[in-house]
Every structure is written in C-alpha cells, then in structure tokens.
C-alpha cells in the first residue's frame, strides 16, 4: 500500500527556515529564467516553434504504438537491441541482465531522470556493480548520498563551500577551497579515470527518432559521449514518450530545448547515435511505468509532451522558494506536480497544491503543456478520489457554500470585518485552519467595495448590488 510522502508544506517550511539560503536559491533560478528569456526573445519565431513542437508531441503521443514499432525496426536494422519494460523493476532487471552477460563491474552513467525514477543506481550497487554518475551536478549529489533537486541542474541547492568540503573529503582537494573552476578541474581529473576504467556506459535519451532508429543525447559537459565512446557497451534508457516521428523534427526541438533549459542556443554536444560504435554493442530500453495510462487520459495526455528542460521549475515562485527536495519526487516543480500525482496520487497528494496558479509555467513551457490548468484539475481529481484532508475539504465546502448565498456572504463579510477590527491577526484562526498559517490579514477597509460601487456606479445602467 502506498504511503503518503511528507507533504510539501512541511518540507518547504524546513527549507525556508534558512532565509539566506532560500533567497539565494530563488535568485539562482531566476538568473537562469532571465537567460532563457534573452534567448527566447532573440528568435522571432519562438511562439511558432512552441506551437509546432506541441503539435509534433501530441501527434507522437497519440500514435505511440506505430512510432515505437517503427523505431524498433529501424534501430534493430542498425544493429541496436531494443528492449521493452512494463515497469521500473523490469527495466532494472533488463539493464542488470545486459551488464552481467558482459561481465561488467564498473559503469559510468550520464544524467537520466528515468534511471532516477527507477532507482537504478542503488539496484545495481546492491548487485555489486560500481555506478558512477558523471554529470558534475549528479556526481556531487551522488557523493552526498542525495537525489537531484532539479532535473537539469541537480546540485542547484548546494553551495560551493559545501562542494569544497565534500571534494576535500572524497577527492582530496585542498581544505577550504571553494573556487568552482578548481573544484570542476578536480572532478574532471577524478572522472576521467572513471571513464577510462569503465566497462559500460549508460545514458538517458532526449529524443528517439522513429524514422531513423537513432537516439539523441544532449549534454554540455561531454560526459555522455565520453561514457559511451570508450567502453564498448552502451545502454540507453528511455520513457516511451521520448519518441519523435522524423529526424527533421529535431530542427524544432533542439532549437527549443537548451534555450528553455539554460538559456543557451544549443547544448555543447547534441549527439545522434545511430547504431553501436565499431566493434561495440548498443541497447535501448523502452519503459512504460505508467506512461501509457497518461497517454490515454484525455485530460492529462499533454503532460507527456515534456522534454525535461526544467523551465517550469526555474520560473515557478513556489519551486524557487521551496527547493526541489520539498517535492519528494524524481521530477519536482510544476511538471513534477502533475506527473507524480497522476502515477501515485496517494503518495503525492500535496503537490498540486504547491502552486499559486500564476500560470508562469505554462507560459514558458516550450511544448505548451497547460501545466497550471492541469494542476488545478488535479486538485478536483484528488478531492473526488477522497485524497484530500478533511480540514481542507471542510474549508472548501464552507467557502463554496458562502459564495453561493449572497445574503450569507454579506453577513459573513460584516462579521469578518468586525472580527478583523477587534482581533487583528487572530482572526485567521491559524491554530484551526491550514489556510491561516502562512497568511497575515489586512486591516479592513473603511468603506466596503459594495458601498463604494453602489455610490460610484455609472448612472447609465450600472447594476446596484
């Protein structure tokens, strides 16, 4: 039976307790959002690109079977072995099976949210393999025994002093060194050895092309490429929704991805793998793990458009101020608050409420997912399923009832103003209501809006209320 995760507000409270850190986190992400804006505004066709991308994704998601089979056929012809997995467990067993059949002991892995979703690292380690995450941010969180707090910038929550202390302990860098350049160089030297010693490389997949049977992996560091061009074995793990019909569709997606993610015109390396390297072997694992169900859901299908750029996180006022770990999920932030409750509503009940419905996520999303509409709708779904706490339901019921009865509403308004005047902040009933806890109440106005309106309404037909 699924258990409820620690709710977002509880974890967020811990995060904001350190005001300086919370403020710094907020600023760092906003900096990326601004870089994204510069890039987006630099292309006159930005909105047209978003529209095309959304349409291509919608088309692919509604024709998954056709494109997956085409991909399998073409990839196989190029010498790739394609595997299918229903869930995380099957996925991990397939990967382990391939690694074992090659006698692999050391694996280097580039960033893949899917393998995080499947908890592949602990699984492989449990079976005696060494797994090294090679993206710098991921290596940092791995050495700290943490999970990424952001899908593009995994260590965005960690300060350079902490990285310095960590590297000094684990990699033998100078004590007290905090210069990012020095620390990055240390990681480069450390990971070079790992690349050279590795028996196999695992990567994620940004795009899989049905037309050609190829996969595309995008990085800035070059870690994915090093990891799969030294060892002869390459395993690429992907969710079913990563499929796109035509290779030329990349002309749309690669123009959007890095601009949205980090404000770069394109990632440093966008590698197109068509078949294994000379004398090597390449496997692609296609994972469902609940994706088909979302693909069949008329209300939420578009969530599968996601290309994991992280723009919705960088712009989200809640994410920026509460940190990725407050979401207790592999994919945090706005899109995570849609995807996770869709898969396991009981575990992630609090996520659709970690949102002010400001709509900024939907505005920046390069594939036009109506994220904030979906979050709003998910709240109703959760209510329908009986997954909302009684206190919250009761408040909603009360307010709903009040809004339907004008006279009662007027009386309520009078009572509220009276108690605000007499009791001030106490009127928020913060010991009683969830709503009142984070809010201050204003001093009631001298004149109510109703009175003001009735006095100032236009004489030519303005309604008396």
């Amino acid at each position, binding site marked *: 039976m699924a258990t409820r995760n620690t709710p977002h507000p509880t974890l967020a409270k811990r995060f904001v307790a350190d005001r300086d850190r919370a403020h710094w986190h907020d600023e*760092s992400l906003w900096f990326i959002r601004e870089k994204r804006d510069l890039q987006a505004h630099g292309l*006159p066709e930005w909105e047209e690109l978003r529209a*095309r991308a959304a*349409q291509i994704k*919608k*088309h692919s998601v*509604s024709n*998954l*079977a056709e494109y*997956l089979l085409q991909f399998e056929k073409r990839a196989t012809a190029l010498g790739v072995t394609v595997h*299918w997995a*229903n869930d995380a467990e*099957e996925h991990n067993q397939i990967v382990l099976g391939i690694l074992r059949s090659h006698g692999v002991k050391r694996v280097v892995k580039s960033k893949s949210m899917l393998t995080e979703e499947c908890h592949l690292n602990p699984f492989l380690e449990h079976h005696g393999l060494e797994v090294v995450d090679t*993206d*710098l*941010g991921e290596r940092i969180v791995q050495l700290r025994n943490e999970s990424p707090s952001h899908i593009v910038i995994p*260590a965005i929550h*960690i300060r*350079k002093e902490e*990285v310095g202390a960590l590297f000094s302990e684990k990699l033998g860098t100078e004590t007290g060194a905090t210069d*990012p*350049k020095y620390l*990055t160089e240390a990681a*480069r030297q450390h*990971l*070079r050895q790992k*690349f*050279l010693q590795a028996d196999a490389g695992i990567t994620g997949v940004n795009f899989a092309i049905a037309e050609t049977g190829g996969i595309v992996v995008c990085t800035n*560091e*070059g*870690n994915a490429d*090093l990891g799969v*061009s*030294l060892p002869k074995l390459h395993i690429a793990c992907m969710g*079913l929704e990563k499929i796109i*019909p*035509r*290779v*030329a*569709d990349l*002309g*749309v997606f690669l*123009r959007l991805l890095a601009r949205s993610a*980090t404000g*770069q*015109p*394109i*990632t*440093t*390396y966008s*590698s*197109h*793998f068509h*078949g294994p*390297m000379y004398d090597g072997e390449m496997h692609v694992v296609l994972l*469902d793990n609940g994706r088909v*169900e979302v*693909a*069949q859901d*008329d209300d939420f299908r578009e969530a599968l458009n996601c290309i994991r750029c992280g723009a919705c996180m960088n712009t989200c006022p809640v994410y920026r101020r509460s940190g990725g770990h407050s979401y207790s999920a592999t994919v945090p932030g706005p899109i995570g608050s849609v995807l996770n409750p869709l898969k396991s509503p009981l575990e992630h009940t609090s996520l659709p409420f970690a949102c002010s419905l400001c709509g900024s996520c939907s505005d920046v999303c390069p594939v036009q997912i109506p994220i904030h509409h979906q979050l709003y709708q998910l709240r109703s779904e959760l209510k329908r399923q009986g997954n909302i706490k009684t206190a919250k339901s009761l408040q909603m019921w009360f307010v709903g009832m009040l809004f339907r009865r004008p006279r009662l509403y007027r009386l309520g308004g009078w009572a509220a103003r009276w108690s605000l005047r007499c009791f001030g902040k106490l009127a928020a009933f913060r010991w009683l209501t969830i709503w009142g806890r984070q809010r201050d109440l204003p001093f009631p106005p001298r004149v109510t809006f109703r009175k003001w309106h009735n006095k100032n309404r236009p004489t030519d037909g303005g309604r008396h209320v």
Partner: protein
Amino acid sequence: MSNAKTKILARLAGQSDISVELPKLTGDWIQYTDPVEQFCDTAIEISACVHLANGRDDCTELINRLVCMDTAEMVCCCAADVEVASLVLSSVADPHELELLDVFIAEGKIGVAENGAIWVDDHDIAHRAALFLTQHLVLIIKSGKILNNLTEAYSSGVMDFSRFGCWISGPSKTADIEQSLVIGAHGARTLDIIVILDE
C-alpha cells in the same frame, strides 16, 4: 515477442482515437543577411575561438600557429589536406590509447549561424572518442557550408543518419557549482574553429 512488448502494445491498442496531424516543418525561420558573420559571432559568444582562413594552405598555417599546438605532444588530424604532424587514428587499436591526446583536428559538414554549432560525423574518424577525450579541439568548416538555422541543416541532405554524428557548439562547459560557468568540464577545454572562406 517479449512479454512486456505484447502488454504495452495491448495497452496502447486501447488508446482513444484522437488525430493530431503531424505539422509540416517549413516555416518563416530566421534568416541572416550574413550567416557566416552571424555564425562567427555566436560561436565566440559560446566561448569558441574563430579564425578565418583563405584556402587550405592558410588553414594549415593557422592551425600550426594555434596556442594549443605550442605545447602539444600528441596531435591527431582527421581533416583532409591539412598538413599537420599527426598520429594516424585508424592505426590506433583501442581508443583508451588516446588518453593523452592534446589536440584533435576534424572537419565539420555543416555550420549553423543561429547557434554556432558544427555537425561532425564519424565517417572519417576511426574513434569518435577522440572528439571528446582530446584536451583541445579544432574544427574546420567551409564558409559555404554555413546555414541559417537548424531546420535548414536537417533538410540539407548532408547529414548521414546511419552513423554517429554530433552537433558541437563551443568547448565543454558546466555551471553545476553555484551557476558559475566553467569552461572545460569533461570534454575539450578549448574549441578553435577555422572557417575557410570560399575558395
């Protein structure tokens, strides 16, 4: 047919029939009055060094004068008609032997003005690892191969989708520590681009 595949396809068969048309890719995509100049500007912005060469001989001379060549001990060149003392990549049995590679020189097939990226495939490169393992990378591109945008590139017919190929834009980089940009993450520390002006 594997069990999982059967199950996934069976689940997908129940997919409600919504038809969203696959859009055309033609469009009013960005054009530059001088794509070569735009390409150079963008490449410099993303931390590459750009050099203009008048023909192949000039290109050879430019490469030999690059800063990264000064102290280079192991150099490998896979570009045709560039005379640089070089290791022959196809004679290397195992890419691990390239661990100490200082400079790698290759020729790109297409350059893209909007993002400063160069398309390199492994047609003439026996070990693609060289592109990523080298300390310094030099990419040659003919000015006539520089297009306006990515859509033009994908429809140019020049890209070979039956082998490994990669857009490379600038040297490797990371900003994973406090968003401080550091050049030289795992791949090349520097990227020199030689643009050969129309011969």
